[in-house]
């Protein structure tokens, strides 16, 4: 059953179409990575889901209700949106007390969430004295105040050191094991690959893919590299029906759009000796770049043009 439903969501900021008829669902008790390059519309989508941004069109609901319709929303949904949303001279402890009071949550919960994120010893310090990683932990503590069944985390690993990233990964997995639903955004697929059950990938505000990690890589483009003295003959025989063949040397081919098994069977039928054959299974990052057409160069171009 879907806990989060985004249906035909569209958001236009003046001339900029940030989210474009986006639809996806998140099932109860799953951890879903919400991925896309910077500027893809992830944060706008999450803010719309949380009632902070008004959609131009479409709907985003949690348990069938818009965020604004939820009674005591922090008891249902916890969110971490940015690491700087704290009054700098207020202590972490007081920040949590304020949020607990606003949401009608027992103030005793403050100590529990501080312990959960490992800030119990520094909670009386002002937030302006916190590192970015400590602020991220405080954000997660805030999100956990209401012991919510749904967590929405926007780039939660930003600013965390490797130890912090591992801590976050274990925390998210632990939350999922407790049956909570987690939607976690990132522009780096590898960052969430070990944590999520499935992914929703968007680019330029549009849905690019929604699937499990296994299905994503299984359906991804693979490159079959072949070394054979009959390269010309093999290329002519296989290079059709969506199969792309590239001659990288006189005796070497790179074939995409088919499987190594088919290449081997065809070569056997034609009695073409295969001296060497390897297959590069696209890793998740390759898949991500292929789907979003956003390799490192494209990223750089986008950042410059923005």
């Amino acid at each position, binding site marked *: 059953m879907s806990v989060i439903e985004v249906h035909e969501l569209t958001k236009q900021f003046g001339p900029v179409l940030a989210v474009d008829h986006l639809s996806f669902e998140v099932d109860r008790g799953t951890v879903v990575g919400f991925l896309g390059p910077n500027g893809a519309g992830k944060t706008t989508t999450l*803010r719309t889901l949380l009632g*902070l941004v008004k959609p131009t069109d479409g709907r985003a609901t949690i348990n069938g209700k818009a965020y604004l319709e939820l009674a005591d929303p*922090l008891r249902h949904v916890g969110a971490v949106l940015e690491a700087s949303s704290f*009054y700098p001279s207020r202590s972490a402890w007081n920040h949590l007390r304020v949020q607990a009071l606003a949401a*009608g949550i027992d103030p005793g919960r403050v100590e529990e969430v501080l312990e959960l994120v490992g800030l119990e010893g520094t909670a009386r310090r002002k937030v302006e004295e916190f590192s970015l990683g400590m602020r991220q932990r405080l954000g997660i503590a*805030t999100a956990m105040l209401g012991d919510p069944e749904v967590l929405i985390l926007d780039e939660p690993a930003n600013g965390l050191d490797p130890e912090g990233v591992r801590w976050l990964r274990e925390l998210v997995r632990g939350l999922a094991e407790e049956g909570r639903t987690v939607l976690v955004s990132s522009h780096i697929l590898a960052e969430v690959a070990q944590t999520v059950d499935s992914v929703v990938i968007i680019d330029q505000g549009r849905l690019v893919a929604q699937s499990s990690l296994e299905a994503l890589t299984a359906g991804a483009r693979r490159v079959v590299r072949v070394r054979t003295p009959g390269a010309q003959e093999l290329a002519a025989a296989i290079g059709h029906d969506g199969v792309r063949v590239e001659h990288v040397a006189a005796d070497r081919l790179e074939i995409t759009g088919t499987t190594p098994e088919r290449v081997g069977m065809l070569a056997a039928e034609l009695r073409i000796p295969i001296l060497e054959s390897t297959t590069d299974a696209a890793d998740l990052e390759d898949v991500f770049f292929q789907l979003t057409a956003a390799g490192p160069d494209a990223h750089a171009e986008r950042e410059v043009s923005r």
Partner: protein
Amino acid sequence: MIRQIRTELLKLRTIRLPLGLLATAAGLTALVTILGAANAGGAGHMAPPPLDTTAGVTNLLSRTGFAMLLAAVFGVTVSSGEFRHDTATATYLATPNRVRVLAAKAIVAAGVGLLFGLVASALTTGITLAFVAAKGYAVTVSGATIARFAAGAVLGSGLLAAIGVGVGSLIRSQLAAIVAVFLWSFVVEQVVGGLFNSTQPYLPFTAAGTMAGSALGGGTSALPFAVAAALVAGIAVVVSGVAARTTVQADIA
């Protein structure tokens, strides 16, 4: 609503800015009152009338303008501070009903604003009476008048703080909103009131000042206390209403 009001009060109790603004208001009020008292009856057109006159005592008692101005600035910080520090996101996640949040802010700011007026009127009254007594003069202003001026300062500060909340919500940039309040108070009202004397009683800071005993220039009469209070309250309601409408429509991005 009670929960939102308690939350806003807790927010104010856990930062130093409100106390800093209150202390500044108290310091400036004491300074201008002491300077006025020391120069009362002196030479120069800026010197207040002597302290053995009603005009002289009234002049000192009504020196609560800085407190009213800083109460308005305080109101601005209550709302615009949420955007300056990006805490609006957390606030509206906990309480998605933005009108309720804004109403709680206006109520709390008005309540704390009353404190600005109370401290300022206590200081002007105490300093004025101390100087009058030190010079051996009889107090030429009745107790009822002193109480009315104090009530005007208290009520005016509270209402201006509520207006400040609306201004801070509308402008969002804290610096721009504070500059706007200062410009309005020191430039717009002075220029408009100076050019068109008859408008003076209807300008919010000027009207609040008259409630606290300030005299108007150009021989213009101040509005009766209740009318002036109703006028400033009406402005607070209108500004808050516009701010609420704008805040509900706005994206918190």
